[in-house]
């Protein structure tokens, strides 16, 4: 492993932030510039969105179920078992749904994007694309960013619904709670700010997943080993950034509303 002096490390870090910011900026501004790759965007929406449905459904379902299971133990002590629906609902919609969906999609797609673009980079396919007169940021980055932001929003809604369903299954069949009471509690307890936080966060998470994946893919070098390194870093940084941004966006929205 190569050791860097503190000044070289600082320079590399600043350069990486600068390059990531430029990539993110170009990804956004390209949305308003021709040519627009609609077919590529739809294909990526299928890969990123539809392809992630099974893991998002399973994650949501079991998170909601385990949440109801653990909550019931505590609520029972205070004789408020009927509030299980409320607890599952707020926890899933406000935080766990968006964050877990973001993390699952980061694990699946940030790595996929980084390895795909990384392989293209080290085999000169990105240079070949530029040589053929096509801007790889327009053709490869922007469709992935648009698809990721758009699909993560809907995946989060699916995850929230599955979480509530998992919670209901535990409440109904294990805790013997009334279904109507559970769903009514779950629905009535949700305030506008809960839904707002829950649906605003995925927009940022989708952007993070795609841009971090693309950044590490486009800057991969050093053959297959470099691609592997880029893939790992993409997942790690996308996950960390999701958790950090989740805190700040939630804080901001709570302050605003």
């Amino acid at each position: 492993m190569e050791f860097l002096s503190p000044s070289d490390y600082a320079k590399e870090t600043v350069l990486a932030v600068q390059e990531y910011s430029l990539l993110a900026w170009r990804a956004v501004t390209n949305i308003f510039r021709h040519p627009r790759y609609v077919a590529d965007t739809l294909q990526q929406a299928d890969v990123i969105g539809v392809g992630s449905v099974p893991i998002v459904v399973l994650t949501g379902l079991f998170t909601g179920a385990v949440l109801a299971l653990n909550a019931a133990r505590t609520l029972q002590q205070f004789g408020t078992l009927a509030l299980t629906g409320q607890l599952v609902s707020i926890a899933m919609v406000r935080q766990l749904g968006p964050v877990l969906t973001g993390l699952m999609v980061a694990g699946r797609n940030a790595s996929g994007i980084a390895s795909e673009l990384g392989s293209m980079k080290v085999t000169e396919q990105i240079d070949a694309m530029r040589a053929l007169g096509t801007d790889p940021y327009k053709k490869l980055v922007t469709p992935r960013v648009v698809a990721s932001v758009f699909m993560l929003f809907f995946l989060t809604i699916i995850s929230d619904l599955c979480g509530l369903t998992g919670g209901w299954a535990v409440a109904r069949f294990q805790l013997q709670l009334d279904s109507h009471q559970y769903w009514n509690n779950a629905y009535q307890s949700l305030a506008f700010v809960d839904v707002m936080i829950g649906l605003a966060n995925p927009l940022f998470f989708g952007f993070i997943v795609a841009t971090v994946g693309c950044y590490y893919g486009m800057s991969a070098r050093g053959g297959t080993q470099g691609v592997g390194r880029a893939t790992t870093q993409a997942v790690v940084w996308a996950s960390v950034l999701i958790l950090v941004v989740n805190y700040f966006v939630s804080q901001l929205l709570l302050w605003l509303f």
Partner: protein
Amino acid sequence: MPTPVAPDEKIAGGAEQSSQAAIVFENVSIAFEGKTVLESISFTLERGETKSILGVAGSGKSTILKLVLGLIKPDQGCIYVLGEEVTSMGEDDLATLRRKIGMVFQESALFDSLTVRDNVAFRLMEENVPEEEIDRRVKEALRFVELENTLDKFPAELSGGMRRRVAIARAIINQPEILLYDSPTGGLDPVTSTTIIELILKQRDVYHTSALLVTQRLQDAFTMATHYFDKKANQMRPLPAGAHVDDRTTFMLLRDGKVIFDGTAQELATSRDEYIREYIS
């Protein structure tokens, strides 16, 4: 005593030369991570000329091709391609210019998720050319490289030589004004290498495209200078004995990032420079 030339006249002369030539490098230098790769190199590629760039590994040959395309920018100097100054161009203008240039990469750089047909048609699909027109031109380009039967294959299903031929078909699909070949015969067996050189020669003699050919194989460059493409027989033939060696094919030799030779095959063969004599022996 020679008449002094006014600076304005010099500039006008330089600009005129730049607009007529296919490629002009003027005192171009570039360094990577503190290591100088090209140091103040200047050369001109005339229209219709094929220039073989020779030199040992790491001498900056491939860097020249990337500079021509504007894939990287020089630290110093000016580069004119088809009369346009590429060093100061933005990415959108460069993309327009690149459509007039074909490039064959060292390892082919075919898009591995696309079929041969889509690889060759990539440029046309980006320009929204109608499907029938694309099919016709793809077949024409693949016929040129004698790979008409590989339309639906993926690059992974082809041999190294076939991939190189598909890369040539992709580069010539829209009849570019300049072709750049980056070690097109590197890593290939002698028979396949000859096939590739024959294709490059065919492109030179049939379409008269200006070209830069980067190679480490001296015999490839000399074959280019001593052979011609016989259209009737559809094959490469040596120039008849006593015939003038083709002076549209020139040689440029790089050493330590500097141009140490730029001239014809005849001049290269008769050079008295010790390094050059050792290199060509």
